[in-house]
């Protein structure tokens, strides 16, 4: 029952960062470590927010940062499954205009497949 749990799943299409719990002042460093390990390694990144109940300003900044860094490497960050309140928060700060927000990890993968074109 940690405040925040992060774990990475490597799928063929993307690395998926599953975050569970709360990103706040105390746990933002953990979230940062997890993101830093992923962005810039050449793969697409999906952040699975479906079990994230809280995200504060420090966490939002990290999402902005991850998106910038990924774009700089020609990759994307996609956000999957934020709760209604986190979705509203993403809108408030305008992150919804910069990164794709989808319902599920599966949908995020569909998006990436579509973008890469059929094989």
């Amino acid at each position, binding site marked *: 029952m940690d405040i925040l749990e992060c774990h990475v799943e490597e799928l063929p299409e993307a690395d998926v960062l599953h975050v569970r719990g709360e990103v706040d*002042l105390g746990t933002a460093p953990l979230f940062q470590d997890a993101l830093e390990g992923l962005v810039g390694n050449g793969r697409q990144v999906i952040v699975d927010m479906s079990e994230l109940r809280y995200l504060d300003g420090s966490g939002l900044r990290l999402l902005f940062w991850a998106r910038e860094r990924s774009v700089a490497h020609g990759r994307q960050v996609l956000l999957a499954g934020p709760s209604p309140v986190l979705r509203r*928060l993403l809108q408030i700060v305008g992150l919804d205009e910069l990164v794709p927000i989808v319902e599920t990890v599966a949908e995020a993968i569909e998006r990436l497949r579509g973008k890469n074109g059929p094989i």
Partner: protein
Amino acid sequence: MWKLSVHLTTALPELRAVRHLVAFACRNEGGTDIESGLIEISFGEALANARLHAHASGTGQIMVDIAYDRPAMTVSVYNDGSPLLDRSAIPDARPEEESRGWGLYVIGRAMDEVEIQRSPHSDRGTLIRMTKNFALV
């Protein structure tokens, strides 16, 4: 109509406990998940600021008021220490990615009313008071 005053320190577990209590109080009074969640996030930002400034001032003490007057939930956060802020510190537009002001920007967008003043409890403290009206459909 009720009002509770909560005294706590800047320790993270205490900030989390009071933040969770506020979120619960919102839902308990009929706030939607979105209303309650936005109040929790705004309150959390104010606590984070208060922590920083209370800590810098050496007291490590924060005071919080939680007040409900149907349909308005009002949360206030007080801390000692300078610098003082006022209402004009709330940005109208989203701050640049690396600049300050994000916390107050979110608060300004998420809450219905925000007031910032010199703390009534100390001559060098800050008080931020924020209200959100529940739709209570």
